[in-house]
């Protein structure tokens, strides 16, 4: 049975607590229904359960601030404050020891905080509307923050980084020339919300070098802010308006602030509509605060909902994709306790967690292998917003995009959902012995248990052919190739390792990459969607077919990235490259047999202009070449950057400045060309472009900056030797 057919609350009707909670939620649902002019009675059907989910979400929203003042997932700090304030003062929300009504994260977390509706305590009193509670809770929150800000002036537990920097700097015998380093901007100083990060708990005392960096950074902020303020006067910006902008911005949670800065700085990473929304929303909020009451403002401010932006289904995605994306976006908020600096660890955790949540919320079913996917009608129009309550429970709230482009929680009935949702079946392969499905790309498994996911490794060949048998990735034949056969190949978003038969033949490529690994749209003809629609198979929706083709194109693009890396690897990778090329051709052939001529004629064809690199195959000679190349790169970096550091401090040679870029992917470096007007960025970009011009080493190779320069140097040295 698809678990979506039952809510957790209904799974154990004999449980008194569950019945109590069920009653409470049904009551909450009825209240919601009354407000919406509807009435539901009896056991909820599927439509009602969706509706019930909305009521639950709204009930939870009573305890958090909406929109700009409290993103459900981003502004955890404010949520906690609001929880404390509202839970304390709003009579129909009380602490109980009953089981949570939604998915339980851990028993331990249940014990910590389990706010629930308790209809026994307040069976008659009509709950306040969410807006009333938003408004009252928000006002209390602002008041508490203002008081905290006022107290902070005399609070020894609140540190000021600038004071700390000045103190440390002057203790070293130096003197800060400008004693008025405090930011002059009135708007900044009017911000009432002190950062909790400034608390002394765990406070890191600045050393002299850090103090210098901090002072210089503050000086940079001062100059930048001063320039804005002087322009504001000339532009006749209304008095206090910039202060309101700053206030609205600073009321955001840290996560949302980072997202805002990112959206502004990295235009190519964010949709224009999203950037518009951020700035337009903040402007509107700022204007409104000049003229409107807090309660009215709160209602309008909810337009800024980044969770919807992250949770929106894109083409070829299932619910697990968007859940994973939201988890990866705010890992700490959602309970990640691993190493945040390890992107792979965060990603793997987010995927595992996403399937776990999907399983528990009914969007995936291990038993049947079904996962909820979204067809073309729902793409960009439906969002599955992940929420984690203070009691550690997870919930998924569905939102639909309105005519105004804003995502909102709405009544969604079954017929409406059927227009865009469908159940996608995949015979995923928990081990290499299970034959992958012909229908689904092997990189898109569904219905995992957590344990299965940990061990899952899809194997190609896929798309219908049987996986190879008697494989080994542990004992690849010695001497079969110069490189390490078990080495993980990383290329862009895709990574994996090759498999070999006992006689050393490359027979498989294992990747743990889930979901689309690369954008393969460039490989498809412009009219590929209509071509697919004209080849509709028995009872299969267009959305499914389009997703399959899109997924296969994405896979080919991923393989192309792997091939690009292999071609630049400096060892004999021909068997691996040939294998992947064969796979690409098989995918194209099979796909076009099923769906028509969807791929461009050039798809899967090796580029004629790809650089040929004739590096030594002898390991000793190759090692020497790589060492020479590394030294050449070091010398080049020193010559480019001299002895100046980033701020001209704390650096004894140019290496330190360059280190900031060393591990950055080349593609990422080039994307921000013209974005950051920094002399250092321009220097590094010039180094990379010069290396490309000199050697022909593809910029799209997936290498980071340091590796790219080393590889180019090796090619250059070898080419020089070859011509002698």
């Amino acid at each position, binding site marked *: 049975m698809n678990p979506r057919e039952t809510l957790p609350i209904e799974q154990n009707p004999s449980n008194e607590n569950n019945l109590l909670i069920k009653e409470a939620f049904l009551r909450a649902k009825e209240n919601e229904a009354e407000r919406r002019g509807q009435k539901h009675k009896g056991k909820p059907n599927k439509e009602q359960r969706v509706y019930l989910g909305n009521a639950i979400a709204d009930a939870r929203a009573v305890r958090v601030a909406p929109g700009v003042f409290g993103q459900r997932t981003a502004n955890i700090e404010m949520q906690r404050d609001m929880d404390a304030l509202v839970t304390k003062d709003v009579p129909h929300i009380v602490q109980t020891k009953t089981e949570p009504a939604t998915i339980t994260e851990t028993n331990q977390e249940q014990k910590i905080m389990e706010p629930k509706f308790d209809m026994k305590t307040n069976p008659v009193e009509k709950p306040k509307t969410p807006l009333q509670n938003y408004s009252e809770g928000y006002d209390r929150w602002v008041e508490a923050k203002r008081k905290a800000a006022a107290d902070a002036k005399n609070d020894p537990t609140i540190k000021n*980084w600038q004071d700390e920097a000045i103190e440390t700097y002057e203790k070293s015998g130096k003197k800060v020339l400008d004693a008025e380093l405090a930011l002059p901007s009135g708007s*900044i100083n009017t911000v009432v919300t002190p*950062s909790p*990060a400034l608390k002394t708990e765990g406070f*890191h005392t*600045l050393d002299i070098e*850090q103090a210098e*960096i*901090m002072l210089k*950074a*503050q*000086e*940079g*902020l001062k*100059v*930048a*802010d001063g*320039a*804005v303020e002087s*322009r*504001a006067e000339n*532009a006749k*910006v*209304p008095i206090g*308006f*910039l202060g309101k902008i*700053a206030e609205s911005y600073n009321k955001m949670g*840290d996560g949302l*602030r*980072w997202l*805002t*800065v*990112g959206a*502004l*700085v*990295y*235009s190519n*990473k964010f949709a224009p509509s999203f950037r*518009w929304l951020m*700035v*337009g929303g903040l*402007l*509107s909020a700022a*204007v409104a605060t000049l*003229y409107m009451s807090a309660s*009215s*403002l709160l209602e*309008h401010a909810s337009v800024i909902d980044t969770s919807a932006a992250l949770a929106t289904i894109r083409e070829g995605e299932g619910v697990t994709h968007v859940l994973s994306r939201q988890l990866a*976006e705010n890992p700490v908020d959602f309970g990640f306790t691993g190493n945040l600096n390890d*992107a792979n660890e965060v990603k793997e955790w987010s995927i595992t967690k996403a399937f776990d949540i999907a399983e528990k919320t009914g969007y995936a079913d291990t038993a049947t292998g079904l996962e909820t996917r979204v067809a073309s009608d729902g793409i960009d129009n439906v969002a599955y917003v992940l929420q984690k309550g203070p009691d550690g429970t997870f919930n998924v709230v569905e939102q639909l995009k309105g005519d105004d482009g804003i995502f909102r929680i709405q009544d969604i009935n079954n017929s409406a959902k059927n227009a865009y949702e469908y159940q996608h079946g995949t015979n995923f392969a928990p081990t290499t012995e299970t034959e992958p499905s012909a229908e689904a790309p092997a990189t898109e498994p569904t219905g995992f248990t957590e344990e299965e996911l940990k061990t899952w490794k899809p194997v190609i060949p896929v798309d219908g052919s049987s996986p190879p048998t008697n494989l080994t990735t542990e004992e690849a034949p010695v001497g079969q190739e110069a490189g390490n056969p078990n080495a993980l190949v990383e290329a862009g978003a895709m990574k994996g390792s090759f498999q070999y038969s006992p006689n050393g033949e490359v027979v498989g490529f294992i990747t743990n990459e889930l979901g689309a690994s690369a954008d393969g749209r460039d490989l498809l003809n412009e009219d590929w969607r209509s071509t697919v629609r004209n080849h509709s198979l028995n009872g299969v929706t267009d959305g499914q077919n389009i997703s399959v083709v899109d997924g296969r194109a994405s896979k080919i693009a991923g393989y192309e990235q792997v091939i690009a890396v292999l071609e630049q690897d400096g060892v004999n990778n021909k068997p691996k490259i040939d294998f992947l090329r064969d796979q690409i051709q098989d995918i194209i052939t099979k796909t076009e047999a099923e769906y028509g001529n969807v791929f461009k004629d050039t798809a899967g064809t090796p580029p004629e202009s790809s650089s040929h690199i004739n590096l030594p195959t002898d390991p000793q000679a190759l090692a020497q070449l790589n060492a020479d190349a590394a030294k050449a790169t070091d010398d080049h970096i020193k010559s480019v950057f001299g002895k100046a550091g*980033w*701020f*001209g401090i*704390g650096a004894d040679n140019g290496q330190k400045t360059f280190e*900031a870029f060393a591990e*950055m992917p080349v593609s990422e470096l080039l994307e921000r060309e013209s*974005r*950051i*007007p*920094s002399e250092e960025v321009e220097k590094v970009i010039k180094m990379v472009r010069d290396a490309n011009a000199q050697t022909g080493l593809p910029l799209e190779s997936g290498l980071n900056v340091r590796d790219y320069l080393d590889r180019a140097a090796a090619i250059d040295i070898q080419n020089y030797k070859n011509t002698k």
Partner: protein
Amino acid sequence: MNNQELREVLIKELGIGGLPKEAQDEVVGKLGEIILKSVTVAIFERLPDDARKEFEDIGKKGDQDMMQEFLQRYIPDMSELMDEEVKRTLKNFSEGAK
């Protein structure tokens, strides 16, 4: 690009990698605030005088949709405007931090 990646990239480019995380957050947070204000000033610089009254009227109504429509009408190239202001702010920051 997620928040963590944004964070790492920005910190590298701003040259504040040596600072404690909390101090980094403060610098980037304030920089974002200044960028937003810079964008706001640029919008006002582009607004004709007779549009300011309309701007205030929309603000009084608190109509989010009208505000978006208003901005799109007067600032059709908002994305480019944002890019310019980001550049301007970061340039000023870099110069001040030298």
